[in-house]
């Protein structure tokens, strides 16, 4: 099968969905020029009224999508960097997320929020945060986070077709990662995890870049420990079944989440496992997240992020 990069895969998702549904449009800052290559050239293909550049006016930028979505359009809002979503937190986390429920289910809000996220470029906190937990904490938005080009394309297409706000960030460190993507059309549904590697001793649950890290560690430990890597692909809806199926085999769990630890998704998953699968656990659950501090820039950044070494240590701890 042909191989393309993750960012190219997202671009293909845009192109395919824009071709089949003229209600789909993209809005963001500097996306016509391709601030990231997922939008490069799209304005030439679809015109100025489907690829819209906005001022640095994020509340109105989200608003342009939120309003149009209520009228049957299917906008994708590109925040450029996940950290910039904070400046439109009310529009995203309250207004867009709650609109459907709060208004009696009268009006659906089919919009996608996307941005590059993730630390690794030494850019300090605002340019490095992966603020998934903040989205997950606010019911009404779905949250996906792909680890491969295949998933990125399939999830983005599902996100665009979903009748709810969906946040699909992608990780900057995976942007140029290549992977197999079929020429034929396919979807990856939201809410279906993917066992990226089978194993019997310990389950590592991860998303995004951390799936890659987990797979690396699993391969390295192959001769010692049989590691199962469950890539959730989306955190809401959450495929809890996939996790419990895996725990039934392994009885041991490591959760890796590239977001600040406190009140993050890893904590949520641990709480759910304690609630639903307590008896399956043979050891305390380990979580590997970003330490409870603003993500530093510079060389210090590396200390606070999840990485293969930390994942390995966690695995060794739960099997000890």
């Amino acid at each position, binding site marked *: 099968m042909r191989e393309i990069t993750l960012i190219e895969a997202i671009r293909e998702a845009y192109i395919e969905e824009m071709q089949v549904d003229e209600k789909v449009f993209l809005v963001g800052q500097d996306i016509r020029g391709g601030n990231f290559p997922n939008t490069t050239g799209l304005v030439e293909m679809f015109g100025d009224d489907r690829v819209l550049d906005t001022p640095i006016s994020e509340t109105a*930028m989200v608003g342009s999508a939120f309003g149009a979505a209520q009228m049957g359009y299917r906008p994708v809002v590109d925040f450029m960097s996940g950290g910039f979503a904070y400046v439109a937190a009310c529009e995203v986390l309250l207004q867009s997320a709650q609109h459907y429920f709060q208004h*009696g289910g*009268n009006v659906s809000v089919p919009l996608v929020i996307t941005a590059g996220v993730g630390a690794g470029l030494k850019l300090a906190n605002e340019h490095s945060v992966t603020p998934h937990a903040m989205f997950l904490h606010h019911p*009404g938005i779905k949250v996906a986070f792909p680890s491969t080009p295949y998933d990125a394309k399939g999830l983005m297409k599902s996100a665009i077709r979903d009748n709810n706000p969906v946040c699909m960030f992608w990780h900057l460190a995976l942007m140029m990662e290549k992977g197999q993507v079929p020429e034929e059309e396919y979807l990856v549904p939201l809410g279906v995890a993917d066992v990226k590697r089978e194993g019997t001793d310990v389950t590592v649950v991860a998303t995004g870049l951390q799936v890659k890290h987990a797979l690396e560690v699993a391969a390295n430990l192959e001769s010692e420990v049989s590691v199962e890597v469950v890539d959730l692909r989306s955190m809401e809806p959450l495929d809890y079944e996939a996790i419990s199926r895996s725990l039934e085999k392994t009885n041991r769990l490591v959760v890796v989440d590239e977001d600040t630890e406190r009140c993050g998704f890893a904590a949520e998953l641990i709480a759910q496992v304690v609630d639903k699968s307590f008896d399956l656990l043979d050891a305390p659950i380990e979580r590997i997240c970003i330490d409870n501090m603003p993500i530093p820039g510079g060389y210090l950044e590396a200390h606070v992020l999840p990485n293969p070494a930390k994942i390995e240590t966690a695995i060794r701890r739960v099997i000890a």
Partner: protein
Amino acid sequence: MKKSIDAKKGKGPKAKLSNDQLLTLYRNLVRADHFDKCYVRRIQAGQLISFYHAGEGGLAPGVGACSFLRKEDILWPHHRAHAQGHMLSKGIDLKYYLAEHTGKTTGCCKGRSSYHWSFPEYGVFGTSGCIGAGFSPTVGWGLACKKNGDGQITMMCCGDGGSNRGTAHESFLMANNWKLPIVYLIENNGLAIFSKHEDMHPTKDIADLAKGYGMPAVIVDGQDVIAVAEATLKAVEHARAGKGPYLIEAKTVRIQAHGVGLPDLVDYTPRSKEEIDELRERDAILICRERLLTEGLLSQELIDQIEAEATQEVADAERFADESPVADQLDLSDINKLVYAE
């Protein structure tokens, strides 16, 4: 506290209103007033849930702005009087809103939201508890109206206080950059809770902001529903014609406290009876009635009839709401069904 209306600003060649339209304005104003009084009475009697922000004194801008919109036009109404004047003028049957506000299953939001409204078939999608929140989706509505390409426009209303939000700036920028068909109506009643407009905005007129965006703007006497309607017709025409957004500032007043049951302070001292009496002098219904009487469009008989119809309409809405079942059952077995659209 008295608004001094710079009469000149509101002048200019006026859009002509038909006799029917003039009567519609009067009728809607009376209806809005009846609903407003009903809500005040009910909340004081414990027959309305959550809170109510009485509209007395400030009903004309919403009625003037919304009486001649098309059904498919989009409207974000002001929170004052819980937008009843705006919504009934748009053609919405308020009984579903009263049912919502009394926590009934027949409410426009299925009893989920007390004061929220939602009538998407009339272009009123919902509201927010965050003042100034409407500026953001307005850009999207304006954009979709433009994309739809059939002359649909968006009317976005808010108070003087709401115009202080940064969302206003961002909305004005994008609406003007993209020449979106949006009419912004600032219903300036000189107060936001206890705060005086003079202390919260550095110039006399909020309409001054329009200059920064090259956006046409007009200031109208918000106690004169006809003036508001005429200004709106011009602004709407401008927007429908693809000429971009337009801002109307309507100078109006707030007779009661910010919310029913709250103290009525300015800064930190109570408003005096004299102050309020002065505000009452320019009563929007009386001003309109006077004008229509002068023009021979109203008779005492018609006045009484309109009054009676409004009384009946409110009574019907109350009966509908009161007879509807209380929305107190929530099937939490599948939360996601409630929270997410299919």
